[in-house]
């Protein structure tokens, strides 16, 4: 029993990420509406960001900003005292890039709506079939 509890505590961040990942994945596959697909893509990206940030954490460590007094004394910095800064850096840029991809995706879907008058994938497919010659 004790082993199971410690296992859950050690891994539940990954399971939460997997659940979020699957919600986004399912929305991207199964939803027909383009905006819902875009929302799914964003949930997927959020799951990846959470995954990276949770990998960077260390027990008993603080945020990766070195505490420095104003006395000018150079304290020795222990790597175990600060959480891993690298995932934070990667995700910082990933968040902004996800905003950028969201903007482009919305622009594309607006273009699609202007052309076909709908955002439902099957209706767009139908209109494409109609317009094809022969």
């Amino acid at each position, binding site marked *: 029993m004790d082993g199971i509890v410690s296992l859950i*505590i*050690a*891994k*539940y*961040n*990954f*399971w939460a990420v*997997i*659940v979020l*990942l*699957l919600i986004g*994945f*399912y929305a991207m*596959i*199964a939803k*027909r509406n383009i905006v819902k697909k875009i929302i799914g893509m964003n949930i997927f990206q959020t799951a990846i960001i959470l995954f990276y940030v*949770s*990998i*960077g*954490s*260390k*027990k*008993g*460590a603080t*945020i*990766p*900003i*070195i*505490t*420095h007094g104003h006395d000018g004394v*150079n304290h020795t*910095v*222990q*790597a*175990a005292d*600060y*959480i*891993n*800064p*690298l*995932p*934070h*850096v990667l995700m*910082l*840029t990933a*968040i*902004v*890039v996800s*905003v*950028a*991809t969201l*903007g*482009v995706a*919305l*622009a*594309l879907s*607006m*273009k699609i709506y*202007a052309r076909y008058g709908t955002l439902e994938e099957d209706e767009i497919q139908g209109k494409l079939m109609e317009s094809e010659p022969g």
Partner: protein
Amino acid sequence: MKVLGLITAFCFGGLLFYISFDFPDWGDSASPASQHVSSYYIEHTMQDTSVPNIVTAVLADYRSYDTLFETAVIFSAGLACFFLLRVGERQAPAARFYRHLSTGITFRIEKGGRLPESTGEFERIDSVWVPYDVIIRMTCRLVVPFIQLFALYVIAHGHHSPGGGFQGGVIFGAAIILFAISNNLRQALRRMSEKITTLLSSLGVMIYAGTGMLCIVMGAGFLDYRALSSFLGVDPVTARSHGILIVEIGVAIAVTAVMVWVYYILSSAGRQDEGL
């Protein structure tokens, strides 16, 4: 399709769940991700760059190539929105709508009618009726300067606290977008025109890349800020700290401008006349 998607998702999820047992425990300080390069960054950032915020130092110094191209990605996202949606000037609309500022009466002026714009007592409003709300406008007018001030603080204080160019730029862009939402697109365009947003977004990327080029000119590698020490008049370690600040400002300008630019294009469907 739904069943197929569900089956795929569950297979994928089962696989990931199975793999998760091989992952390091949450908060394990001996996990592989925290072993090699990350401990070097933590232990050497202070003496290398004199920047206490390791994230900022890694972002704009150790991994500055990555961030440069990340900024370029954002800029090209703005360009992509522009080329996808921007359309030229529309034909003059059939009717224009004006509001008399002191009384709040709305006028509809048919095509060819005389425009009362020059008197300064009228304000052009969108053809889709938008209610005039004093409370929203005044609240946003009060809040926007403080948001912008906070954004500048976040940009400038990125060396010592959580913050930096990306975060501050997004906050600054959000302040301008809030202004555009609470008033209307026309008002926002009058204060920050599309030309300015395009210029600023390319200027931000140029500041970043230009700093890198300056380092080459000064005789070091691309984005090696130590070369700027003679230029800035400080020792090489402090020069790296200053170099980080310069590129962070470039990033902030680019991010702000692209956020606002994308908002302008999306909210008006590329016509840039009236929107949300």
